[in-house]
């Protein structure tokens, strides 16, 4: 059985926690995020006859009060970069975070999740910008915590990428 440490980073209130809540095993409450700055969950993925255990470090969304604790990133094999599709600034934040993470722990697989896709009517994201990052080789998946869209796909894709490394 293979285990991998996976982080979830993103701006505050992008729906990181809700996104995985229904799909993971959890023993810690959300209080940990606001206190210790991280909440740890577990997700088991079946991939090509192989079982992969993802230990998800759901990091507190960076806001004005709390910076991302880069030390939590150490040892990660991959990460999700979560963006709230209805708030453009969270996309910009994600780009900054991505470079911070890369600086801290190097280049590892990651997936950009454009969350809250169920609220497409209020979508703020510029398609051109998204296309640009796709062109840079980023894997972009639209997701919704509410409908579950893209969540399993995101886990599977990231797992695949991590095992390829």
């Amino acid at each position, binding site marked *: *059985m*293979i*285990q*991998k*440490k996976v982080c979830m980073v993103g701006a505050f209130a992008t729906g990181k926690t809700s996104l995985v809540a229904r799909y993971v*095993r*959890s*023993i*810690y409450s959300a209080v*940990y995020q606001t206190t*210790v*700055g*991280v909440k*740890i*969950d*577990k997700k088991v993925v079946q991939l090509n006859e192989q079982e*992969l*255990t993802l*230990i998800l*470090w759901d990091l507190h969304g960076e806001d004005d009060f709390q910076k991302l*604790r880069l*030390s*939590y990133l*150490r*040892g*990660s*094999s991959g990460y999700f970069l979560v963006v709230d599709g209805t708030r453009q600034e969270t996309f910009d934040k994600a780009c900054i975070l991505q470079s911070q993470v890369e600086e801290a722990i190097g280049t590892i697989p990651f997936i950009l999740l454009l969350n809250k896709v169920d609220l497409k009517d209020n979508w703020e994201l510029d398609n051109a910008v998204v296309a640009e990052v796709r062109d840079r080789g980023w894997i972009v998946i639209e997701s919704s915590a509410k409908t579950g869209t893209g969540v399993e796909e995101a886990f599977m894709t990231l797992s695949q990428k991590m095992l390829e490394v």
Partner: protein
Amino acid sequence: MADASSDDRAVHDSNQRLNQGFSRSEAEILTELFKLMQETGSHPQHFSAEPIASNPPTAAEPDRTLPVRSASPAGDEAFSAASSPAASSTSQALQPATDNLDTSLLELQQLLFNFDQSHLNQLRERLENPEWRAADISAVLRQAIELHTLEQEQVKRLAAAMLKTVEQAIQDSVQQDETVMSNAIFPIVGPTIRKAIAAALENTVQSLDQLLEYSLSPQAWLWRLEALRTRRSFAEIVLMRTLQFRVEQIFLIHRETGLLLQEVIAPAVKAQDSELVSAMLRAIDSFVQDSFTVKSSESLDMLRFGDLTLWIEQGPQAILAAAVRGQAPLELRQTLRQAIEQIHRDHQLALAAFQGDATPFAAALPQLEACLQTGYRTAPKKGRPYFWALFAVMMAGLGIGGGHEFLMRRRWGMYVDRLQSEPGIVVNRAARQWGGFAIAGLRDPLAVDPVALLSDSQLDPETVTGKWQPYLSLEPPFITARARQLLQPPSSVTLRVDPEGILHATGVAPLRWIQEAQRLAPLIPGVTRFEQQVTIADWRDLQASQARIAAQLLRFEEGETTLIAGQEATIALLVQEIQKAARLAAGLNRQVQLQVIGRANPRGTPARNLALSQERANQAAAMLAARGVNSGQIKAIGVGATQPLTQTALPAEQLNRSVSFRLVFTNSVRSRSGNQ
């Protein structure tokens, strides 16, 4: 320079060989040259054996340094320009040969073999010069060591080879300037010492706590015995016997990723998802490091929550965390440390190459299981029914014994009080002793017997030991008693001792007794003087009284039990005489009896007369008793008409219708009981 000269000799030999061959055929010369080249080419092996330090650069040879060395083998042109003094000095060594050679031969050599003598010389010089060689080696030293450490076995050999040198270097460094080394190791030593002191203090506090808690319990006495028996300190025994802990869970965590490598759980322990717990532990460690000012080398080593403690032992690549319930001894820390060290030794490569696959760490299970320790108390609290039963019996026994003892002591106290209040007894000592009581003091022989009083006190005479010294009490009752014992007074005499010790005697007694008493009384201990008001008792007085009583007659009506009126004076006289006679008789140690004899005249039937006479006697006796005569001294007798009186002047008919009196004496039966 001895080595250099030997080298010179070698070169000289080959030159000579060159000279000799000059007359031979050209082919031979060429062969010779070829050989020479080969020999020269083998020189490096010869020179490599030379010690580097044996040929240091000197001021006299300043030009043997870098300018030449910097010339690469490819730079032949610059080198062969013979501008280098080094090259020329080598050339000088070959001078004897070249002198004889024709320059055309040299040209021939160059033409045939493109033979570059200066190149050869340069190579030789390079190999000969230790400094160049040192410089060459230094350029590749790092790579060489890195290459070397690829293999574990090689690393060990290199370390062993360098050991002495490194040790010596450290020693020299400390001797020269100890601050260098102390500054270097300070960052390590400080925290280490702090940790050790903290651990020792914690241990001490723990010991003290438990000592206080347990030093007063009944269990503590058993432990004291055990300490004596096993020759260990009491504290050690207490610690050993009271620590109760259980290592419930052991996690082996990959340090970098926080991923769980392996875990063991004690039986029947309900454990949370260990993978999440181990990641969270790492997160907390990072959290503390980020949030507080701590050195990067320091890390979380203990988390405590109530009686659950998380002991964390950090290794460079893996962490061992033990969830411990209760108070574990500090030896557990040692166990954890040894385990993590062992795991690092055994799985170094697997740890370094860890990519999420924990399978190789299944082999670490024995080390983890060794940490799954449990410490018990000697016996569970409820498992001591025998002790409590024994305790209850002892307490009941103590209760009964205590009650009994209380009662005994109370009775004893009352007995001693009673004795102390008794005249003629002085208690000096009264004590409870093993199995009973003891009492000692002074006792007048006339005082009450202490043993006789025991039965009143409900004390067993067997349990009481009395030790009495005889003495004479001067209390008046005792003087009196003593006087009575000695003087033997008649019952009609009363003895009394007043507080001044004067013995008073009153009553009636024979003259002889009175005289004897006067003689003896002063000799009685405690009697200061004898005073008596005793009437002398005389037989003649008694007889006279007897006669007067006998002369009296009380007359009755005809056929009746009623006295004829006017005889009151007779009755009064009788009473007076009887009492006087009784007193006198007592003084003479006699008792008196008054016989009251009733009579009847012969007119009636004898039976009627007897009854009538008895009734008349009874009537008279009752009348006397009513007037103060002791009824015990009176005896009423009816004689009917059988013993008629004849002597008086009265007609017989009236004379015998009466009661007459007769006083008789009996020997006195005296009580010697000592009543006064």
